[in-house]
């Protein structure tokens, strides 16, 4: 799983759960497939060798099946625990650290709008910064997002963060992320949203605090100039 970059705090946990499942599933897959091909080879039709009458009704041969399916159940328990742990971390908890910021994500056919808090760190104030298709965040800082849709279902997906969440019209869906790497990471729409669905890329710009402050300053000045001009 180091094929793709891990750029959020929970990316590593998602990948860890996937790796656990890969080991468990891989064990069963290779065991079963190996047995399967061996049986086909070992009991191919040969002259003078007849099939045996085994109905599987007796206890002795059936034990192998019973034993195997108990083991499958045990593996399932491990998978459930790993899955739920990761799920609770991503979807059921919200950061409460004082430096947490909130951003608003508005999806529509076929664009993303982002409302960032300005230098005051608060939404719904005069210095809010609105952008289209570009989300600017600070590295190592927790963010809560409020995701909405103006028309149909969309899905805010950042592969590098291992984050995916549907946007549903009429609802505000809240979640969080915390980037761990600076750089630019792509946003894809992950829910069919009409003919422009494939043409709805966005970009998360994860910046160091200094870069982020500089970006905010440039945007705030621009916003103020625009207001003055009006």
């Amino acid at each position: 799983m180091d094929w793709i970059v891990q750029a959020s705090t929970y990316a590593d946990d998602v990948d860890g759960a996937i790796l656990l499942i890969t080991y468990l599933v891989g064990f069963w897959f290779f065991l079963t497939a190996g047995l399967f091909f061996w049986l086909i080879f070992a009991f191919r039709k040969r002259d003078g060798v007849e099939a045996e009458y085994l109905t599987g009704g007796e206890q002795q041969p059936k034990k192998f099946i019973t034993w195997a399916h108990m083991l499958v159940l045990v593996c399932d328990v491990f998978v459930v625990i790993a899955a739920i742990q990761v799920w609770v971390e991503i979807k059921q908890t919200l950061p409460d650290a004082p430096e947490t910021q909130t951003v608003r994500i508005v999806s529509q056919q076929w664009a993303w709008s982002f409302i960032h808090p300005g230098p005051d760190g608060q939404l719904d104030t005069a210095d809010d910064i609105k952008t289209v298709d570009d989300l600017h965040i600070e590295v190592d800082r927790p963010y809560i997002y409020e995701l909405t849709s103006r028309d149909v279902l969309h899905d805010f997906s950042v592969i590098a963060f291992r984050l995916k969440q549907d946007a549903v019209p009429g609802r505000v869906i809240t979640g969080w992320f915390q980037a761990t790497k600076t750089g630019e990471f792509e946003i894809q729409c992950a829910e069919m949203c009409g003919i422009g669905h494939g043409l709805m890329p966005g970009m998360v710009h994860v910046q160091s605090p200094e870069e982020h402050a500089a970006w905010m300053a440039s945007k705030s000045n621009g916003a103020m100039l625009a207001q003055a001009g009006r």
Partner: protein
Amino acid sequence: MATAEVTHEAHDDHGHHEDEGFFKKYLWSVDHKVIAVQYLVTGMAMAVIGGFFAYVFRMQLAFPGEAVPGFGIVSPAEYNALVTNHGTIMIFWVAMPVLIAAFGNFLIPLMVGCDDMVFPKINRLSYQIFLLSAIVLISSFFVEGGGFGGAWTAYPPLSAVSEYNLTPLGATLWVVAVALEFVAFLLGGINFITTAMNSRAPGMRLYDIPMAVWMIVVASILFMASVGPLIAGAIMLIFDQTLNTGFFDPAKGGDPVLWQHLFWFFGHPEVYVVLLPALGFVAEIITTFSRKPLFAYRTVLYTVFGTGILSFTVWAHHQFISGIDPRMAHIFTITTLLISVPIAEMMFVYIATLYKGSITLNTPMLWALAFIGEFLIGGVTGIFLGASGPDVFYHDTYFVLAHFHYTFFPIAIIGSFCGLTYWWPKMTGKMMNETLGKIHFWGTVIPFNVIFLPLFVLGQLGQHRRIYSYEGFGELMREDVWLGMGMQDMRVLATMALVVMLAFQVVFFVNVFITLRKKEKDAGPNPYNANSLEWLAPSPPGHGNFAELPTVYRGPYEYSHPDRKAKGTDFWPQWEKE
């Protein structure tokens, strides 16, 4: 064997049924075998359309923006319509009619030993409505705005509001076609269940019913029990589209997520609705060609019922990230992973059936074994997706797509070829060509894996589904990521393999053509020395199936019984007294 030969001769006087005229015999028939052929031919014609759609959109993905030979330039709207209708057709107009309707119709009366379905006219009506539904669906591609392109799951508000989907007529015709198809299968299901329960030959107890029949019966029960909510949903969706109601519109007090619950409450059992008949065919074939009883018949049966019941409790694993209460994900993760137990058990039992057998690798057996091998991959990759945490990453990626093609391809395509090649001699009285059959088998199964294994890798790299072109995504155009291939190279490889696989289907049709032109009926009633009742009837069975309705003395899988070996034979048909 003597009994069988006598029956064969006795059946020759059934010729007098054949002077009914072409229309009455082939288009207005109430005979279950003719209706089976109608379903089979319609399903295969739809498969050709669905396959062509796959070819067009795969070509677009491999060579974005270039004209596709046989189609032309693909627009985003066309791309969405092709993807949507490929899924819709393959599940509702190929897997359902071929696996359940065609084989259910053909096999159930023959395998339970009666002369026809209990309600032959309902059976005829079922096919007629099905045909109508297919015509409605096809016509939806040609109306103004084009075919519906909102994915086969048709999530509102996209599917409900024409300003959003831009296919005002296509979307409505799509829902109407799907609703009609459901009506056809409800009618068919009534017939399958009633016939299997009420018209069995004397002596056939519930545990003597061949697995293929059981599986189709359970599938019909699952379908009938799950489809009600979706029919209600489909009607609400039609109202939202045409009467401007707001069942799924939050501005009018509706809820878009409601549709997802109704759809997947049906949609997940539907997976098992098509899976079970295919598993049934595999059971018949692996027992016949390994000359072994089905390992633990009763366990298989209980497993089938267990899977069926559990399948009603897993639907929201399709909706983990759809905005449902996050706590719900725990319940559905647990139920989803629980279903791995009966399914694994079934795989183990089938594999155990091979143990100490005498395995003949002819064409039907190859298909049956391929089903087990490929479905195994589909099964194990489902664990990743049923687990809520990892699904946050996997949802909507090509990993999902590759996973369900590793289940649906074995089901709909391999399963259909299992049934077709195995029962072809019974249907036509003629044996297919083995060499062509094996060429077709390898030419299908090898390219299938070359198509979908790279798609797992693409999914693992984060490639999303239903995207018209990946050229706008730098993260999805990386070079040299797997075996020296870049991501676009893998798309090209998958597309090329698809073209090869489609080309090899010609071999199958050639084989069919050659076989049908053969003059002599070389199959005889029981070419495989198999046990179940359909092999007592002549090949092909006449109107009324059996010269004399059979009596059943034992289960269908009594191969290599010691008492029979002493008499120099390794099978013990259900209809033979001693």
